[in-house]
């Protein structure tokens, strides 16, 4: 009916979620046991604690083609490991500023606290990020970068042109 709508619905964003096992993973489990519905784009990676989440993983996720990344753990004070989420909070406060400075649109990187009791919030956060990223379109920056070569090593091959077309 609306042509622009059909175009946007063609794009299924890839959303990667890094979550802690005690709160957000359990919250996502609760969303499941409560049979709540949310977009199927998200892929969840379980960590013991947000404290374990290395900023490199976020970078790696974008490099591997993620259009959006979610990092979620226990609310402050609720950390199963006392303070892992406090350390993570500082780490990511700094890291997101760095990513922003090199030109990553921070709309694609969401942080949240979702407790084991907040199945609804999990659904809300995942849905919101997925839809936001869907509207923004694919994250081209890292995908293009992956195909980019030093001029000296570049070739004009049909394979490469194919790859460019695909992204």
């Amino acid at each position, binding site marked *: 009916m609306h042509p622009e709508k059909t175009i946007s619905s063609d794009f299924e964003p890839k959303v990667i979620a890094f979550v802690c096992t005690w709160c957000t993973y359990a919250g*996502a489990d609760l969303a499941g046991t409560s049979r709540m519905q949310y977009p199927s784009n998200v892929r969840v990676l379980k960590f013991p604690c947000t404290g374990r989440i290395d*900023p490199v993983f976020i970078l*790696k*996720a974008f490099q591997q083609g993620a259009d959006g990344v979610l990092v979620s753990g226990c609310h402050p004070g609720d950390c199963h490991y*006392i303070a*892992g989420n406090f*350390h993570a909070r500082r780490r990511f406060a700094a890291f997101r500023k760095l990513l922003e400075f090199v030109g990553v649109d921070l709309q694609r990187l969401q942080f949240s606290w979702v*407790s084991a009791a907040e199945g609804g919030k999990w659904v809300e956060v995942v849905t919101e990020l997925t839809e936001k990223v869907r509207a923004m379109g694919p994250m081209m920056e890292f995908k293009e970068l992956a195909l980019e070569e030093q001029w000296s090593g570049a070739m004009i091959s049909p394979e490469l042109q194919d790859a460019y077309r695909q992204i």
Partner: protein
Amino acid sequence: MSRIGVFICHCGENISRTVDVERVAAHAAALPGVAYATEYKYMCSDPGQTLLKKAIREQRLTHVVVAACSPRMHERTFRKAVEAAGLNPYLCEMANIREHCSWVHEDREQATVKACDIVGMMVERTKKNRVLPTITVPVTKRSLVIGGGIAGIQAALDIADSGHEVVLVEREPSIGGHMAQLSETFPTLDCSQCIMTPKMVDVANHPKITLYTYSEIELVEGYIGNFQVTVRKRARSVDERTCTGCGVCMTKCPQKKIPNKFDQYIGMRTAIYVPFPQAVPNTPVIDRENCTRFKTGKCGVCQKVCGPGAVDFEQQDTLIVEAVGAIVVATGFDLYSISEKPKGSPIKGYGEFGHGKIPDVIDGMTFERLASASGPTGGKIVRPSDGREPKQIVFIQCIGSRAREKGISYCSKVCCMYTAKHTMLYHHKVHDGQAYVFFMDARTPGKSYDEFWRRSIEEEEAVYIRGMVSRLYQKGDKIVVMGSDIAVGVQVEIEADMVVLATAVQPQQGADLLAQKLGISYDKYNFYSEAHAKLRPVECATAGIFLAGACQGPKDIPETVSQASAAAAKVMTLFSKERLEREPIVARVREVGCVGCFACKKVCAYGAVEEKEIRDRQGNLLRVVASVNPGVCAGCGTCQATCPSKCVELDGYTDEQIVAMIEAL
């Protein structure tokens, strides 16, 4: 080359309804390194597990991925099965295609694609899984019980009776908790204190129980089997060893008009006091906020009259460190104050019911004190305002409870029964009085409970009105209660002498703070969370910590006692072994690359990272590197994310495993 087996569960139809499990199996079978992939109706069932074990042996599988429900549900199950088939349990992972997939997506195509991805991700991760040997740690066979109400008392007595030492910590000057405040108990109407006080005395006399009253938990360190708990023993100003409990100090204390918390502030006590005559220990405590000596420096009568010289104004708080192997949390409940909105609470108050403003609107616990033979009125039910016997009394149930719009959606569970009890106690004491009860519905599951409730109506002549009270106001010396009887569809107006509100049961104030010290989780109301709602209702997710009583959710006495005994049984099970096996998800340092910056040590909340000196054969110090104590490490992995050279690695969550998952997407 790995030979991975992938087992996809239908979970009846829970998964297969939305996920094309055959397609997922075909997808898995085509993944590099997968030697075998199949699907089955119920993987967790006996035949399912047999199928798994058989495949491991026949297909010579090196790793296993079970695509089914959440690992929080069945990881243990499958790891045990894998172990039984001769593989290290940590070579088995679960792909969550139920909670995270089939239950949350309706579109079969999308859900199937996602399930394939999840399985692919877990296959790549599992390839990098290593054999992890089980770690064993010694068990300190002493336990800590926090809270000296009926839950804590029961747990402490059970554990102590099994021959293990117990440290019981109570915040108030006496153990006994709320049960000691009750007059009679449902459904038998036996006197609460008559059944409670002997248990309190047992605690005091038990050779295996160390009792700290007027004390709080300051700090909890360590882990299952090896906790170090610091207890702050607040200054009592009375030496417990020398005090004989004669009580002369209390009779001589000039400050006599201090509202007594134990009596819900309707009775008075002195500044040096025991909360109630049967207190255990029977050692008074000086309430320094109200004591003239502490306020002005003058007085000191109690010290003068104390024969044994037990009163000590200079006494300080002391910190005692206790080593224990298990902790039972039994901090109980508090009643929701409807007059004042607790600070910072999302719960809205019930100011419209006049509690706190109209003196004769009281809560259920205050009624208990009025009805109690040892209470401030000696068991006479009278109005707090003028001491007159109320002839018309209205009980209103579900105040705070089951009112989502007020912030609490749960049922407080005990109010229906205690209100029925209150009508009986009232009727027994005020023969010409009339009790009315406003109720939404009566919840009376429990042995002899419904019979008890019916008795209050049929024999004790309480009038039950199904409906909610809309308004309540003082008119002269009466309280006008306006409500609706929805059963007959009429407005009801009662001129009452007294109103008793069955207010919601809430966790103790500060329950969240204690949880943070213990490292246990709690829900949005601050009730402590059990590890599993059905199958592990006594354990916390944090190993070695168990729950008893209303700190976990509203409970009546029989339930509380049952759970306390269950918690005690769990502790005894833990203590039945010399060493304890623990999950080997711990950090390890690669000493070769460690540059000794100790960033890991700085971020470790458990003090698990130590400095280790590396020396050559002549004993010369070569370098100092980090080293993780696997007994103390809790496995959060914050150290690894912080280590600049990634020379500390968390087993089970290595960079290789995580990167493999990211790259699989």
